[in-house]
């Protein structure tokens, strides 16, 4: 790489050609503030509209100030990042942004976690000299996401996630000038758009313009109701991230404390979605084997590859964009919904209570789960299998409100039987995990042999799109793995036009899988946090005495006493679903 020399704040630095001033400054330990800019390197995600103009710097010989994020270094360039001209411009621009932003920080969902708030503090803004009209828009609430775009600062991060990364195309800039804002086409409600509720827009929004629907009060009310038996399940990715909300290092596993906290919150039973993940593997793995066997036996009606269906945003995505492929995904419900179905049948029966008396709450790293649990297919006589899904962030808020000193909690164990789980269930939380868990079980069921090595490392990693081969004792399975819906689209397009032959595909809508979900503690553009969570998930897997779903004693008992066997009639009734085309669902507001 060709090296060039540039002088930043009097300091000479040699940098690779092609680097921006912002990147070069970082090498020289100079932190130029940025607001709209966001880069998640390993995921190949970059938002660089050059729009906020907070990162402007003074480049010698240039007539106006240059945005450091978007200006390439030139040989011999002299840059000043904090002279009076720059500071005045930066503060003035910040004042302008704040002058068109509501001042309700104290009651904002983003209070304390807002990038704009932090920037105002870092820049020492104590007064807004430029006051005037503020742009006001209609508030928009969907099952998962609230848009309060009065707070939008046009950083366009959500647009990058929604259009470029996820290729969902629900959000883009509309209107011009002072009224420009990011919104669905024709400023429709999100529910009428192509939104999949993946929540990646919320995950990257620097302000409170995009937040999750807050269901904590519903949970508090359920907990306070003596008539109800309140059951909670927690998804695998939650335990790898919740600690961040309490100041613990990213990647700290807090499974035991999480259980203890939930118990102190008053849940009657604290269970694990990992149990349901094991159950998913039994059903989905059996489905894979069934389809494979029939396919290899010459049955032309069998569709391959089989697609995982645990991720509700992914389900929404293929219902919207691939209505012609609705028979390709596995019919297995997601772990959240399998849990709800089993809790309100098997468990309710065990506890000898009506399903209406039971409230199932799930703690999810995900916002699409809020939508998923409201789908009509997952209700019995109007009563949902899962009543409320709250995010990792919402749980942290609940714990704080209940005056629980989280970090000092003892480690406690999940309740039985729906708290029993294996390492295979845990790795559902990261990209590649579902398919690895499925392989562990499918291999042993198919070959009748024990695995020598439980880890399928070829299925792991954070590359956007991976194709790997797994040897099933002479039968080579070709497996595709995608995280991020844009990557999934690439795979699906190839499946649709027949240019790729795969046996199975795992898709997770969020970059990194559930650990990077839209309901997780904010990563503020730091990808290392997501990488550390992935490590923690695999660590939890290794820590488990049982690491294969079909060896989970609670699962074995469930089949023996209740379901019969995988893909049985009862299983089909309780644990499988079907999909709908959403292609023509877009409706224009009548106003």
């Amino acid at each position, binding site marked *: 790489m060709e090296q060039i020399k540039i002088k930043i704040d009097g300091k000479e630095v040699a940098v690779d050609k092609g680097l921006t001033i912002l990147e070069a400054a970082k090498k020289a330990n100079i932190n130029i503030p940025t607001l709209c800019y966001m880069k998640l390197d390993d995921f190949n995600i970059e938002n660089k509209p050059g729009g906020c*103009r907070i990162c402007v710097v003074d480049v010698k010989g240039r007539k*106006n100030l240059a945005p450091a994020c978007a200006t390439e270094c030139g040989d011999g360039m002299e840059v000043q990042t904090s002279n009076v001209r720059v500071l*005045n411009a930066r503060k*003035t621009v910040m004042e*302008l*942004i704040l*002058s*068109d932003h509501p001042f309700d920080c104290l009651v904002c969902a983003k209070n304390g976690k807002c990038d704009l708030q932090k920037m105002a503090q870092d820049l020492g803004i104590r007064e807004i000299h430029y006051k*005037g009209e503020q742009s006001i828009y209609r508030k928009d609430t969907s099952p998962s996401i609230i848009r309060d775009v009065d707070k939008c600062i046009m950083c366009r991060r959500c647009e990058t996630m929604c259009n470029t990364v996820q290729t969902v195309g629900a959000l883009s800039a509309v209107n*011009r000038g002072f009224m420009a804002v990011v919104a669905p086409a024709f400023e429709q409600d999100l529910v009428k758009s192509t939104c999949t509720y993946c929540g990646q827009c919320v995950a990257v929004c620097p302000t409170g313009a995009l937040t999750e629907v807050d269901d904590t009060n519903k949970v508090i009310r359920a907990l306070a109701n003596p008539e109800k038996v309140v059951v909670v399940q927690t998804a695998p990715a939650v335990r790898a991230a919740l600690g961040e909300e309490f100041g613990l290092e990213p990647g700290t596993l807090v499974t035991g404390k999480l259980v203890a906290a939930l118990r102190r919150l008053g849940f009657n039973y604290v269970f694990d979605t990992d149990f349901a993940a094991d159950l998913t593997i039994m059903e989905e793995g059996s489905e894979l084997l069934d389809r494979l066997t029939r396919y290899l036996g010459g049955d032309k009606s069998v569709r391959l590859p089989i697609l995982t269906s645990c991720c509700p945003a992914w389900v929404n995505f293929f219902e919207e964009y691939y209505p012609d492929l609705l028979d390709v995904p596995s019919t297995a419900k997601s772990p959240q919904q399998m849990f709800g179905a089993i809790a309100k049948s098997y468990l309710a029966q065990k506890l000898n209570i009506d399903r209406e008396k039971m409230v199932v709450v799930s703690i999810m790293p995900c916002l699409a789960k809020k939508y998923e649990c409201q789908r009509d297919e997952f209700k019995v006589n109007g009563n949902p299998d899962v009543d409320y899904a709250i995010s990792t962030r919402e749980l942290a808020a609940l714990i704080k409100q209940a005056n629980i000193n989280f970090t000092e909690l003892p480690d406690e164990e999940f309740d039985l039987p729906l708290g029993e789980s294996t390492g295979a269930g845990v790795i559902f939380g990261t990209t590649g995990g579902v398919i690895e868990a499925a392989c562990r079980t499918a291999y042993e069921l198919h070959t009748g042999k024990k695995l020598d090595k439980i880890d399928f490392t070829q299925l792991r990693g954070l590359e956007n799109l991976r194709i790997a081969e797994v040897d099933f004792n002479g039968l080579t399975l070709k497996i595709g793995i995608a995280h991020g819906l844009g990557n999934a689209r690439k795979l699906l397009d190839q499946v649709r036009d027949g240019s790729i032959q795969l046996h199975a595909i795992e898709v997770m809508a969020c970059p990194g899988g559930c650990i990077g979900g839209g309901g997780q503690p904010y990563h503020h553009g730091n990808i290392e946090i997501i990488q550390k969570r992935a490590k923690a998930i695999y660590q939890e897997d290794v820590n488990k005495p049982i690491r294969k779903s079909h060896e989970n004693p609670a699962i074995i008992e469930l089949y023996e006493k209740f379901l019969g066997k995988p893909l049985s009639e009862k299983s089909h009734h309780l644990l499988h679903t079907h999909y709908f085309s959403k292609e023509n669902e877009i409706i224009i507001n009548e106003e």
Partner: protein
Amino acid sequence: MEKKAKQLRIALRNCGVIDPQKIEEYIANDGYNALVKCLTEYSPRDVIEQIKKSGLRGRGGGGFPTGLKWEITANSKSDEKYVVCNADEGDPGAFMDRSVLEGDPHSVIEAMAIAGYAIGASNGLVYIRAEYPLAIERLKIAIEQARAYGFLGKNILGSGFNFDITLRYGAGAFVCGEETALIHSMEGLRGEPTFKPPFPSVSGYKGKPTNVNNVETFANIPVIINKGAEWYASIGTERSKGTKVFALAGKINNVGLIEVPMGITLREVIFEIGGGIKGGKKFKAVQTGGPSGGCLTEKHLDTPIEYDTLIEAGSMMGSGGMIVMDEDDCMVSVAKFYLDFTVEESCGKCSPCRIGNKRLYEMLDKITKGEGTKEDLELLRNLSTVIKDTSLCGLGQTSPNPVLSTMDNFYEEYLEHVTEHKCRAGQCKSMVHYFINPDNCVGCTACARNCPVNAIKGERKQIHEINQDICIKCGACLEKCKFNAVFVK
């Protein structure tokens, strides 16, 4: 007669002279000669050399050397390149490009083909405002005719050079005149600019090298090729060659399009070609460069019109709008008028332009309402400077120019507005009051009868009086009084 002598028509040479819907008339006036000459006598490099030597600079406003732009695009290696004609003329009151397209569309088509030959492009695109239906119609006819005559299409004149032109319509956004925004709009994306580099000449339409020139720039090309670069370079000044078309408007006797050699003074344009100020009033200022330009005054009248001198004087060439103001114009209101336009036309991508211009407008509005303070003037200047310094594209980088130039040249007017709450031009309604001079009033009742709000009391042949609490300052009394009794203070 003198009026004619001052003007020199190169870009507008055929406008009003030939029938724009007949290619034969264009051909009869040297039309397509230049294209033939290029294809038969010149190599692409030769063409670029000619344009460089002519000294032609972009007529869209920026003034970038056209030959150099062509050279950079020619040097960009790619399987495909594009020639784009920017016909998104959007300055208020400016219609130079429209006149060329309506009056002489073939000159643009010929020039685009020449540019295509020079840079190695076989595709031309005209980005034209949908609000120009006649220009679109004539351009379409001209393109058809050029195809029929073999000046467009495959293997033009047996040279092996292919070139054709398609139209793209703009939806009336001023910012789409900015070349990166224009390209995004043509690609079907939101019409907003992106930072440069990369410049379109390296990565433009569909990521391919793209040469974007304005209509008027193109209209000069065939003449340069026909008459030679030296001839063209002999017109104008050291750093600005050739002629420029201006749209004269405002308080001037002769309004309309003019084409003058570079280097002519503002005085010659306004007082000789323009015939001076309407109604014998006093000249106050002239706004050049459209909403992004600045107001120049009496002291600038002898400044030669060139790209660089206008910038030095605090304004710019722009695309050629020239609005003349007289003593009745309030300079704060003038600045407010232009800001109103830029607020409306900002795309909203970058914060200083999106919010800053709005705040500028609001402050100016406050001042014209008599509610401004001296502190506002400082804030106004600081904000203007920061918007210029930090905005993403040319729109925001120039939008505060009307504010800064009026503050520079008419600071005392701003001061009067904020300290004495007085508008000397009498345009800021909230600061003026209408009175009746008892010495002149004869009691004819004309004022009272015409007052729409019955604010004037008085008997016939008695002195009348205006009730300030009711008066809405419409000015009807002043207009109707034949005895010079109504006055403004």
